[in-house]
């Protein structure tokens, strides 16, 4: 008698557990309709009646999924989905804080990686009033506070030891999303991620409107450039790092920017999605006669560049003082507005690049994020 009682209770306990997994909704089976994206290829927003889900992919082939989010009234969703329920947000890069701030949802942010590097006034006042706290960068993340508060963590795909960070977040059941915006090929594709944040922060309308504005402004700037500007300066970007140059490939969005701003990117013909390394010498040979130099690492003045290595002065772009960097707006701690706002507003960046690359055309206008180095 006693044994059968024990046996029955074990059975019941087992079936309860299996009921739990059976009860989780099979979201894949729902008939999802996908919102079409204009430019982005690394995410998909799909809807089914009042449910919404966001899928993030490694690339446009959609073979690897980096994350899945669900918004709706189902509570029992599969473990590989993150449930969006209005939780606070944690941004491991100021880029994401920029996205959220742009759609007027700054107050939903609970944490940023380093408060020093935040530029926007609104975010800074939230930091000063203690509403936004620091959670550390990916190399020294404050797991304890994240595990307790369980905000939704926006992170990028961390190379190297980053996988252990992601594994640990999984173990501690911290909800996270790997944002793959920087692998978009088109600058507008990157900005389109506003829609992702729009869903998450319940600001879909604001996000949609803002994106439309950005697209139309970008396209009109592009059109203006194509119609009116005929000369195409040659452009290169970056600087040396340990004897070698990290060169962005021809398919990256920096190459796109240069092309759209009416320039010829020196490396536009090599069909690379990412970066490659070149020796200083080889880079010099290819770029020595280029007209314009943009994004020279972190330098602020030509003197700084020259004192780092006097071979930089051999470039024609340096000799003609056609060097521009995107660090015009920085706060006293080194925080650069470009990373927060420039990513969200590629239309402004495009206009900036136009002004830099064709100064005779825009004599009375000044770029916002970029400055002319002297």
């Amino acid at each position, binding site marked *: 008698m006693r044994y059968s009682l024990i046996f029955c209770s074990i059975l019941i306990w087992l079936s309860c557990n299996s009921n739990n997994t059976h009860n989780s909704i099979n979201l894949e089976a729902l008939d999802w309709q996908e919102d079409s994206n204009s430019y982005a290829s690394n995410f998909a927003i799909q809807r089914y009646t009042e449910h919404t889900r966001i899928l993030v992919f490694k690339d446009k082939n959609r073979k690897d999924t980096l994350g899945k989010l669900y918004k709706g009234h189902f509570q029992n969703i599969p473990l590989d989905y993150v449930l969006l329920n209005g939780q606070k947000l944690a941004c491991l890069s100021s880029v994401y804080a920029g996205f959220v701030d742009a759609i007027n949802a700054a107050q939903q942010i609970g944490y940023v990686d380093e408060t020093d590097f935040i530029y926007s006034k609104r975010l800074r006042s939230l930091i000063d009033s203690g509403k936004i706290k620091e959670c550390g960068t990916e190399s*020294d993340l404050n797991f304890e506070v994240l595990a307790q508060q369980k905000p939704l963590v926006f992170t990028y795909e961390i190379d190297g030891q980053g996988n252990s960070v992601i594994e640990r977040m999984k173990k501690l059941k911290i909800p996270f999303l790997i944002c793959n915006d920087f692998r978009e090929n088109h600058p507008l594709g990157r900005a389109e991620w506003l829609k992702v944040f729009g869903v998450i922060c319940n600001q879909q309308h604001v996000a949609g409107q803002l994106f439309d504005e950005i697209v139309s402004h970008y396209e009109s700037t592009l059109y203006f450039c194509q119609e009116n500007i005929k000369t195409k300066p040659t452009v290169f970007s970056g600087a040396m790092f340990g*004897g070698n140059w990290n060169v962005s490939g021809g398919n990256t969005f920096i190459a796109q920017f240069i092309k759209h701003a009416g320039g010829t990117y020196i490396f536009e013909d090599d069909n690379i999605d990412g970066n490659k390394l070149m020796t200083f*010498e080889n880079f*010099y040979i290819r770029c020595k006669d280029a007209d314009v130099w943009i994004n020279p690492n972190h330098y602020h003045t030509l003197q700084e560049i020259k004192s780092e290595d006097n*071979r930089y002065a051999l470039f024609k772009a340096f000799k003609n003082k056609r060097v521009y960097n995107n660090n015009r707006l920085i706060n006293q701690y*080194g925080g650069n507005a470009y990373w927060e706002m420039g990513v969200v507003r590629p239309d402004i960046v495009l206009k900036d690049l136009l002004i830099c690359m064709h100064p005779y055309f825009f004599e009375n206008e000044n770029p916002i994020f970029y400055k002319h180095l002297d």
Partner: protein
Amino acid sequence: MIKTIVIFGLLTVLLFTFDVLFGNGTFLFNQTDSFLIFQQFRLPRALSALAAGGMLSVSGLLMQNVFKNPLAGPDVLGISQGAALMVALTLLAGVGFGGIILAACLGAFFYLLLLVWASKYIKSSITLLLIGVMGGFIISAIISTLQVISQAEALKSYVIWSMGSFSKVEAIYAWIIFAFAPFILFFSMYFSKAFDTLLLGNQKAQLLGINSQKVFFIAIIITAIATGVSTAFCGPIAFVGLAAPHLCKWFLKTYKHQWLIPVSFFVGASMALLADILSGGIIGGFVLPLNATLSILAAPVIIYVIVKKTL
């Protein structure tokens, strides 16, 4: 003996020429601006590789003698890290590039003094070696901490500096390094007899009239200058100081420093030049990190030494 010096001297000259002509994966005279390329890019690389490789190798030879340990070398004992720490502190304090060579030499020197002080109390050379290695780790940890708390710009400069490379050396600095090389070479050779006698051990050398302390100190100064100068401009260079002396002894089979010093200079120079050639884009257009290439070249030598010692 003379034959071996000549052979390695010629090898060095050969590799030097090859590095200058083909070091980038392209033939020098095919360029439109050959002289400029030669002067600004090819020559500095080859000069600094030759000089740094040679000096570090001689230092390694002397370190292995005075510490009585075949695994001693400027980088293994943490001396490069000592130089690195001083450079990090200098950069973070905002001092420009000019102060770096002095900082690197001072860093190497102070670190070595610390090692010498420790060696007074620790007789076992294995223990001393372990302490050196741990010292290297501790310093790396300190540097990492500094990186975390420092401002972004200074941090970037340090990270840039810390990747060892000959291609980042500008022309004027390459000549400076090259100027030190003969000085280190001839200064070491001047004390050849003393280093020979030191092979019998500090006690026996002392009984034969050699001031072991003084010779020890001289070896340290030579190492400090060599490591300081190389590390200041090229960043930390791995393994040459450890492996090249062993290769040299394998070829020469003598105890006499009047031969060991010049040959190990040329072996070290050749090794560094070879690594520079291989990492500069000649292999399939790929740019490889210098220290990784050096490790691959040096690893078989080091493994052989370890295996031979334990058999």
